[in-house]
């Protein structure tokens, strides 16, 4: 199992590095294809949204706590836009929900 984990890590680390490296090595000109540019632009939003929901509901012992974290996270992200303020707000909400539930 341990060997498998390192093999998996190696594969994924190399993949991630290749993604970061290829533009530095080969792309000296801007991407001109409008669709490709737009697709790449939208990718992070879709990916992160898909990864966040519904996974956040099962990230804690209670789905209700996860749901509360989601709602508060949405509100704080809307207001403050600060990465760590949002992350910590979610943590605090789950902690408080843990006291109630």
């Amino acid at each position: 199992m341990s060997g498998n984990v390192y093999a998996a890590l190696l594969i994924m680390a190399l993949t991630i590095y290749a993604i970061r490296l290829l533009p530095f090595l080969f792309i000296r000109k801007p991407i001109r294809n409008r669709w490709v540019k737009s697709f790449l632009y939208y990718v992070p939003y879709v990916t992160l949204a898909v990864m966040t929901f519904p996974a956040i509901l099962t990230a804690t012992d209670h789905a209700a706590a996860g749901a509360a974290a989601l709602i508060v996270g949405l509100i704080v992200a809307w207001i403050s836009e600060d990465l760590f303020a949002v992350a910590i707000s979610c943590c605090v909400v789950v902690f408080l929900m843990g006291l109630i539930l």
Partner: protein
Amino acid sequence: MCANENNQNMRAEENGQIEEKKKKQPHSRWGWFLYGLRNGIPICMGYFAVSFALGIAARNAGMDAAQSFVMSLTMVASAGQFAAINLIASGAGVIEMITTSVIVNLRYFLMSCSLTQKLKADSGLQHRFLLAYCMTDEIFGLSVSVDGTLEPWYTYGITIVSVSGWCAGTVLGVLMGNILPVWASNALGVAMYGMFLAIIIPPAKKEHFIGGLVAVSMFASWLFTVLPGLKQISSGFRVIILTIVIAGVAAAVRPHDEEPEPERDEGCYRDHDDEEDESRKEDHDHEEDQDDEKVHHNRLAKGEDVQAASPASNMHTSTMRNGGDR
């Protein structure tokens, strides 16, 4: 060619505003490196908090401290590592690992593309190989916002400090996670999702189309976990399928002309493709009535018109700063 000059003026303006905060930028390589070490400190602190949660997730997936350390040192990718942990935990195959890693980390491709425009033309291969390692959202944000060309040693300075925090947090998350009470690990467990929300929600606020995209993505993702046939699909492939389909359709329905982070570098791009620029100008003229702010933003990015862009240039620079401070 006129656009070129305007663009330079505008850069000077923006840079002036950055200088207000940073006072002065170093001149020597060593000075840049030290400056990078200093600016890396807030990133390091943030990374520590987030990677602690990552360590807990790694522990829950059955990974030990050494494995987690190697993962954090070699990947330095928040969402990417989160996906990696899930893939390892679910015993995913090699193809799924590679495709998921590519999809989840595609934004780094964009950032790398953008940062190549900040490099000196004669930058050696060694810098290209090293800078590629440094491409995270936050380090990119700081690096791309420097005045003129980027001194790679600045980025290296930021990276050394930031990655130290990233790795230390991960290892402590794995080790301390074991002795943490349930409420604490529950609380830290949602930190990662909070961070994701902080990345996707602010742009959604400014661009309603992205807001819709986020809502559709979440709903579709939820459908995939409840509908009978779709339920069988692993979470890794769910991310791939939904990303390709939703982002692909979105790109066809609403092509996006500006890039979110590297707007400043759009200026460099313009130098090369004046023809395409013309057609875009027409597009933006149509949008003008609908969304003033956005047009200012576009103009700024395109180096179209200095006067129109200058009010927006404040906004732009502050966005950059926020990005850098994270």
